[in-house]
C-alpha cells in the first residue's frame, strides 16, 4: 500500500545523473541482463507484456461464461486454475486480466509521469514562484496518506478502471515531480549546462536535448519501481471495494474478491495473487537492475572472488630478513611488488615490479600521472588494498621489518595501528562527517591501549596542538564540516600520528588545497618529521612539491619505476626521457609564450601497454631503436640513481 511512498523515499535523494553514459541502448540492455535480477526481471516483464498482448487470444475458454453447476471447482484438466464463484474459468480470466492489470499500472505510471515530470522539470528550470507553488502543492498532496488520497479520488469519480488509473496516477505525481525536479536541478548545476547557456542555447533546447536525456535513466528506474507499487495500490483499492469493475477481470480485484475463499478454495486467490505478486516482483527486479545501471552510487560493487580464486593464493615472497642495505631496518621496504586489479575479465596489472626502500627520517616522493599505479602502490603499502579488488600478485612489502602482506585480520589491525599512518588526498572525505573530530581522534588514540578517558583527551589535545590547531579543547567537540580544508587535513594528520607510526603515507595530501594552504601543510609535515623522525612516503604529481619537500623521488610510469634517486639530483638532471619531459613541460620554467616541450600522446591505459618499454610510443629517444620494442628495460644504477631506460646515459646533459 505504501509502496509509492517507499519508492519516493529512495528517490528522495535522487541519484546523481549518470556520469558514464552507455555507448548505446544495447549496452544498457547488456548491463541489465548481466545481473541475475536484471535478467530474471526483464524476462518476467517481457513475459507479462506478452501475456497482456496475447493473453486474451490464448484464453482457452470464454472468461465470461458462467456456469452455476461448476462453481468453485478446483484446478482440473479442463480448468487449469479451477473455476470461480460464477463457474468461470480462472485461467482464462487471468489471461484476459493481464491486459487490464498491466494497463492500470502502465496507465497510472504514464499519467503520473506525464503530469509530474513536466511539473518537476519546469519547477527546477523556472525556480521562483512557480517552483514554490509546485513544491507547496506537492507538500499538500504528500500530507494525505496515498491510499486515502486514491480512495478519495475513486470515491469522487466513481469506481472504474479509468478512474482507478487516475487515482493511482495522481498519488504518484508528487514522486515524479520531486524526483524530476531534483535530478533536473542537479543536471542544471552541471558545468556543461552552464557552458550551453554561455553558448547562447535557448532554454527549450537545454531542457529537451540535454536535461531530459540525462534524467531519463533515473526516471526510467523510478517508473519501473513505481509500476510495481502502482499495481499494488490498485489492488489495494480493489480490496477496499473501489477497484476496477467486474465482470472484467483484473488480478487485484480478482484477489480481493477471492479473499474470503482463501481457505475453502485456495486456488481462487492463489493464482491471481501469484500473478499479481509476480508482476510486481518482475518490475521491482527490473527496477533494481536499472537502478544499478543508472545510479552510480549503487555501482562499484566488488567483483566476487570465485572459490578457485580464493584457493589460488597469491605467491607472496616472505618478508623474511630485510635486505641488508644499511645497518638500520628500513621503515619501508618494497621488493618486486606486482599488484593487479581483479576485473571480470581477469587480473589487470597496475603495479609491475616495484622496489623501494625508505629509511626512517627520510621522505620519498612517488611521482606519476593518473593511471601510473602510484596510488595503488600507496594503498598496498598502507594495507588498505581490498583483497577482493586488488591482488598482490608477487613481491613483498615490509613495514619496519614486518611483512604487510598476507596477514591475518588481527595482525593487520596491529600493524596499521602501530606502524602506519595514512593521510588522504581529500581531507573532507577522509573524516567521518557525522562524528566529532574529538571522537574520531580519540578512537585512534584509544585503540590498542588502556588509557582512561582523561588521558585519551589529553593526548587528543596534544595531537591537535602538534598539528598547529589552536584552541584544541573547543575544537574537539566540533564536526569536520566546521573546519576549513586546511584544518581538516591537519586533523587527518593528527589522526595518522595518533599511535606514533614509523611510516607516514600521504596520498596527494595537498593537491586539493590552495597554494598558500599547501605550504602550511607541507611545512607542518616537515616539522613533524623532524620532531618524530618518521619516514614519509608521499605520492604526488606535483614536481614543485617534490623539489621542496622530498629527499628521494621515484618517478613512476605505467606501473613501473622509471627513475629513482635523490630528489635534488633527479630533478636537476633527469636521465629517463619521461622524467626529463615531465620536468620541462611544467609552465613557468621555460621561456614565456614559447611552446612548451610537451610529451606527445596520452598516458597509456592499464592493461593495454605496448610491448617492450612502456614509454616507447611517446619517446623521442626510441627512434630507430629495436631494443626499446624488444625488451622492457630493467632499472639499473646510473649516476647514483636507478633508471629504467636502455639509453639512460644519453640523458646526461
Amino acid at each position, binding site marked *: *500500500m*505504501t509502496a509509492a*511512498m*517507499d519508492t519516493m*523515499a*529512495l528517490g*528522495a*535523494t535522487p541519484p546523481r545523473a549518470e556520469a558514464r553514459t552507455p555507448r548505446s541502448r544495447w549496452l544498457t540492455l547488456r548491463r541489465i541482463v548481466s545481473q541475475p*535480477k536484471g535478467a530474471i526481471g526483464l524476462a518476467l516483464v517481457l513475459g507479462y507484456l506478452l501475456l497482456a498482448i496475447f493473453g486474451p487470444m490464448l484464453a482457452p475458454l470464454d472468461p465470461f461464461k458462467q456456469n452455476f453447476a461448476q462453481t468453485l471447482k478446483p484446478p482440473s484438466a479442463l480448468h487449469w486454475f479451477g473455476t470461480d464463484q460464477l463457474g468461470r474459468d480462472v485461467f482464462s480470466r487471468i489471461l484476459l486480466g493481464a491486459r487490464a492489470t498491466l494497463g492500470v499500472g502502465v496507465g497510472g505510471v504514464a499519467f503520473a509521469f506525464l503530469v509530474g515530470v513536466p511539473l518537476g522539470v519546469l519547477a527546477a528550470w523556472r525556480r521562483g514562484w512557480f517552483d514554490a507553488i509546485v513544491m507547496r502543492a506537492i507538500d*499538500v498532496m*504528500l*500530507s*494525505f*496518506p*496515498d*491510499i486515502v488520497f486514491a*480512495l*478519495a479520488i475513486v*470515491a*469522487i469519480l466513481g469506481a472504474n478502471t479509468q478512474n482507478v488509473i487516475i487515482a493511482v496516477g495522481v498519488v504518484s505525481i508528487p514522486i515524479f515531480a520531486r524526483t524530476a525536479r531534483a535530478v533536473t536541478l542537479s543536471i542544471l548545476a552541471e558545468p556543461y549546462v552552464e557552458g550551453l547557456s554561455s553558448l547562447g542555447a535557448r532554454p527549450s533546447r537545454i531542457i529537451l536535448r540535454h536535461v531530459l536525456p540525462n534524467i531519463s535513466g533515473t526516471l526510467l528506474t523510478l517508473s519501473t519501481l513505481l509500476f510495481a507499487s502502482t499495481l*499494488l495500490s490498485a489492488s*489495494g483499492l480493489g*480490496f*477496499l471495494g473501489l477497484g476496477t469493475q467486474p465482470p472484467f477481470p483484473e488480478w*487485484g480485484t480478482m484477489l480481493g474478491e477471492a*479473499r474470503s475463499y*482463501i481457505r475453502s478454495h485456495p486456488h481462487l486467490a492463489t493464482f491471481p*495473487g501469484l500473478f499479481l*505478486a*509476480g508482476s510486481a*516482483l518482475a518490475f*521491482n*527486479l527490473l527496477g533494481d537492475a536499472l537502478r544499478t545501471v543508472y545510479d552510480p*552510487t*549503487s555501482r562499484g*560493487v*566488488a567483483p*566476487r572472488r570465485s572459490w578457485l580464486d580464493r584457493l589460488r593464493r597469491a605467491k607472496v615472497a616472505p618478508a623474511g630478513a630485510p635486505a641488508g642495505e644499511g645497518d638500520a631496518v628500513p621503515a619501508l621496504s618494497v621488493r618486486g611488488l606486482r599488484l593487479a586489479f581483479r576485473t571480470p575479465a581477469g587480473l589487470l596489472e597496475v603495479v609491475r615490479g616495484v622496489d623501494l626502500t625508505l629509511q626512517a627520517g627520510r621522505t620519498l616522493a612517488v611521482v606519476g600521472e593518473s593511471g601510473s599505479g602510484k596510488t595503488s602502490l600507496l594503498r598496498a603499502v*598502507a594495507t*588498505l588494498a581490498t583483497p577482493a579488488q586488488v591482488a598482490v600478485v608477487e613481491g613483498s612489502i615490509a613495514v619496519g621489518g614486518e611483512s604487510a602482506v598476507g596477514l591475518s585480520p588481527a595482525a593487520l*589491525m596491529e600493524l*596499521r*595501528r*602501530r606502524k602506519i599512518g*595514512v593521510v588522504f588526498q581529500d581531507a573532507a572525505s*577522509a*573524516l*567521518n*562527517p*557525522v*562524528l566529532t573530530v574529538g571522537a574520531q581522534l580519540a*578512537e585512534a588514540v584509544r*585503540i*590498542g591501549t588502556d588509557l582512561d578517558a582523561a588521558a585519551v583527551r589529553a593526548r587528543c589535545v596534544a595531537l591537535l596542538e602538534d598539528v598547529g590547531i589552536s584552541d584544541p579543547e573547543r575544537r574537539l567537540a566540533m*564536526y569536520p*564540516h*566546521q573546519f576549513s580544508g586546511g584544518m581538516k587535513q591537519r586533523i587527518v594528520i593528527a*589522526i*595518522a600520528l595518533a*599511535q606514533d607510526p614509523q611510516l607516514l603515507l600521504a596520498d596527494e595530501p595537498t593537491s586539493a588545497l590552495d597554494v598558500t594552504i599547501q605550504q602550511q601543510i607541507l611545512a607542518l609535515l616537515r616539522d613533524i618529521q623532524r620532531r618524530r623522525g618518521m619516514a614519509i612516503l608521499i605520492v604526488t604529481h606535483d614536481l614543485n612539491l617534490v623539489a621542496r619537500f622530498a629527499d628521494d623521488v621515484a618517478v613512476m610510469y605505467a606501473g613501473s619505476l622509471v627513475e629513482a634517486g635523490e630528489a635534488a639530483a633527479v630533478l636537476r638532471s633527469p636521465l629517463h626521457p619521461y622524467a626529463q619531459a615531465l620536468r620541462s613541460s611544467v609552465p613557468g620554467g621555460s621561456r614565456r609564450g614559447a611552446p612548451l616541450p610537451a610529451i606527445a600522446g596520452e598516458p597509456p591505459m592499464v592493461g593495454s601497454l605496448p610491448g617492450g618499454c612502456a614509454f616507447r610510443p611517446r619517446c623521442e629517444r626510441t627512434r630507430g631503436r629495436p631494443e626499446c620494442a624488444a625488451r622492457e628495460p630493467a632499472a639499473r644504477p646510473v649516476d647514483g640513481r636507478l633508471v629504467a631506460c636502455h639509453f639512460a646515459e644519453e640523458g646526461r646533459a
Partner: protein
Amino acid sequence: MFIPRRLAQALPTLFVVSLLVFFFMDMIPGDPAQMLAGPAATDEEVQSIREFLGLNQPLLTRYGLFLKGLWDPSIATSFRTHRPVAVELAERLPNTLIVAIGGLALGLVVGTVSGVVCALRQGGFAEAIITVLTLTGISMPIYWLGLLCIWFFAVYLGWVPAAGASTPMHFVLPILVVATRPTAMFSRLITASLLEAMSKDYLDTARAKGLSETRVIVSHALRNSLVAAVSVAGVQFGGMLGGSVVTETVFGIPGVGRLLVDAVSRADYPVVQYTILMFAIFFVLINLATDLLTQWLDPRTREERRAA
C-alpha cells in the same frame, strides 16, 4: 527557533489541506442523510435529517464550523455516533500507533541487520536469499499476505489470536505483517548506502587507525547509513498510517484507518474530514521529527539550517 519556524511554514500547507478535505468531501457521492435514513426513506425524512445534520447551511458557514471544531471538539461530532470526533480518534489512535511504530521498529532492526549482511556478503548466498525475500516482501499485496498469515499462524498453528486488539498477543501478527515492507525498504537502503559508504575515505581512515572491520562498519559506515534510513523511516511511518486503512480491516484492529474507511463508506463527513486532517498534521509532525532526527545524526544539516 527551528521548531516554531517549521511549524509556521506548515500552516499554509495545512490550511490548503483543510480546504481540500472539506470541499472534496462534498464531492464524494453519497448523501449522509440519505445513508442514515436508509433506502426506504422518503425525501421529506431525508430532508429533515439533513437539516438536523446542518448540511443545509451554506458551504462557507459549514467550513467555518469545521475550522471551529478544531478547537471546540464538542461541535465536531460524528454523524453516526454523535460523539466528538476527537474522542473517537483518541480511542483508536493508540492501536494504529502500536502497529505502525511496532512495524517500523521491527522493520528497522531486521532491515538493518539484513542490510548489513547483504553489504558485507555481496554476491554471496545470504545476499541472494535476502534480496529474494525483500523483493518478495514489497511485491506481495499486504492484505493477501495478512490473510495467509492469519490462516497459517492463527488457524493452522494456533500461536496467535486471529483478530482483535484486546491483548498484546493480538498485535504480534499485524506488526509482523506490517513490518515486511519497511524491512525490505531498510534492508535495501542500508545495503545501498553502506556500499556507497564503503568507498569513502573515512572508512580507510578508520581502518588505518587499526580498528577492526566490524567496528569500522558499525561505528562509521552504519552511522552514516542511518541518516538516510531516518528520512525513509519518516516516509515509511506516514505510509504505514495510510496503510492502516487496509491492515486494520484485515486484522480486525479498531484503529484510525478502519474508522476512516467505515466513515467514508457511510459518508460520516466529520469523521472523514478530521481524520484526514489529523493524518496531515501527523505527516507534518513526522517530517519535523525526521528533520530533527536527521540533524541530530548528521551535524552538517544542522549548520545548513542555522545558516538558512
